């Protein structure tokens, strides 16, 4: 059994803004309503809802209530970051295929005011971070700058290589009216960007925004009668190593994708060469570098040349992040990558449409944990 007994039939989103001035509930409810409208469905059709967050108040219970439902059936609120986006969507598809729900909405909302909270007093840190936070080492850009440095040491990759990824994403965002950062950049701009945490400059980090994204899933059967051409999740895989602790991952030149890629390609019978659109999770440029290699688009250490040669854009081998990714469209925690994949496979991406897009890879996560989904325009035979 594969996941294509379910289909994505609706997509919705709010504007992405630096400061929305709105609550998470309001943003999520808007994106969910837009996605249902896109599918030709109404809130009353929804009997399942799921999201991922790290304790945000905009829970599936609250959001389903906010769109007018007096009751809701299947709900899952996964405590996770971008590492489990693929898992959340695969679970929604599985709930439909196994008859636990008929129409499931997946959403993610980011509201900068609540995500990490605000420091107002002395901070105490437990868990594994009790051994890192006291050293001034606590936040993800620091963890992954460590990884990028290791890759540079082992494979001779450079900051210019990371820059090639940032430049490619920004060039795509120029054509995307929904993107937060649309001024093109070249290598000089990239190198002139201020250091945040070496070897990362400002352009190596995701662009944080407020906003929400929602996807609507239902059965492949029901999808035939709905508004848009259905897009099918034809395979998914997940993997975690080193207990999910970034500093303990044995070889930081590879990521979770070292575990996930072989599983995904085995389950789908596909390989990197089959993929038309690759929405690579890009919390940092280096995340694209390591995962792109692991998924088999190129050999270790070749990503910079690959991007500079135009192989990751229109007219090349595969279009990577045609929306601009988290780096330039905005940090919607990776659910915006799934939105873009669906839009591309529907043929609805307008000026940034990838010609004859039939298969899209969407990755989710970085470092020791993550997953991926392949979407297709047809169900596998």
């Amino acid at each position, binding site marked *: 059994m594969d996941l294509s007994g379910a289909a994505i039939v609706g997509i919705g989103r709010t504007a992405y803004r630096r400061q929305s001035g709105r609550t998470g509930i309001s943003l999520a409810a808007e994106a969910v309503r837009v996605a249902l409208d896109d599918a030709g469905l109404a809130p009353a059709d929804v009997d399942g809802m799921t999201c991922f967050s790290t304790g945000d108040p905009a829970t599936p219970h609250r959001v389903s209530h906010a769109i007018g439902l007096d009751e809701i059936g299947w709900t899952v609120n996964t405590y996770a970051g971008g590492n489990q986006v693929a898992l959340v969507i695969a679970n929604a598809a599985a709930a439909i295929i196994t008859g636990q729900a008929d129409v499931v909405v997946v959403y993610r909302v980011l509201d900068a005011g609540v995500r990490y909270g605000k420091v107002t007093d002395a901070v105490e840190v437990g868990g594994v971070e009790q051994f890192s936070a006291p*050293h001034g080492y606590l936040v993800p850009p620091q963890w992954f700058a460590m990884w990028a440095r290791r890759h540079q040491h082992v494979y001779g990759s450079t900051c210019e290589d990371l820059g090639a990824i940032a430049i490619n994403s920004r060039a795509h965002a120029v054509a995307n009216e929904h993107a937060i950062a649309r001024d093109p950049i070249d290598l000089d701009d990239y190198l002139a960007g201020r250091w945040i945490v070496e070897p990362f400059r400002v352009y190596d980090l995701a662009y944080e925004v407020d906003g929400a994204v929602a996807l609507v899933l239902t059965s492949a059967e029901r999808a035939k009668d709905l508004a848009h051409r259905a897009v099918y999740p034809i395979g998914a895989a997940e993997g975690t190593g080193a207990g999910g602790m970034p500093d303990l991952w044995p070889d930081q030149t590879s990521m979770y994708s070292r575990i996930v890629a072989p599983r995904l390609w085995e389950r789908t019978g596909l390989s990197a060469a089959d993929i038309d659109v690759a929405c690579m999770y890009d919390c940092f440029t280096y995340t694209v570098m390591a995962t792109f290699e692991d998924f088999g688009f190129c050999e270790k250490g070749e990503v910079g040349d690959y991007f500079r040669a135009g192989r990751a854009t229109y007219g090349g081998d595969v279009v990577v992040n045609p929306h601009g990714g988290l780096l330039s469209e905005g940090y919607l925690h990776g659910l915006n990558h799934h939105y873009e994949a669906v839009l591309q496979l529907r043929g609805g991406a307008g000026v940034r449409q990838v010609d004859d897009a039939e298969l899209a890879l969407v990755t989710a996560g970085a470092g020791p944990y993550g997953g991926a989904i392949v979407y297709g325009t047809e169900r596998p035979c």
Partner: protein
Amino acid sequence: MSIDWAKLPPPQPAPDLDSQGFWDSIGHGELRLRRCPSCALWHHPPLEHCRRCATPTEFEPVTSTGTVYTFIVQRQPAVVGYSALVPYTVAIVELDDQPGLRLTGRIVDIDADEVHIGMRVDSRIELLPGGDFHIPVFSPTLPREATP
């Protein structure tokens, strides 16, 4: 209300039942990690029972020396209590006791530009401002073969 980050202390550890011995021993000037008395595997972060053979672990002194696996140079304030220290260098250090046994800590006594992967370091113990906890920091030492 505006918060003056620079006046707040760095994050303080919140010890748990498995880690209390680490903080107690480092507070007394000795770096100790949990080790399996049966199969000799070191564990950090600490575990009550060995992850390989499930034997109860015990805190034992660990060598203070190791090798820089990778490192960062923090150029912008990112963590409370550290604003005044930027730029500062943090490394993941592999201790000599066991491949993959890693400790994280700041690299001191050397310019950030001179820190490199593979550099030999030794740890020393410093008071963490804002409380009674102590933490390890690392400083460069001679290459292993050149150590007298």
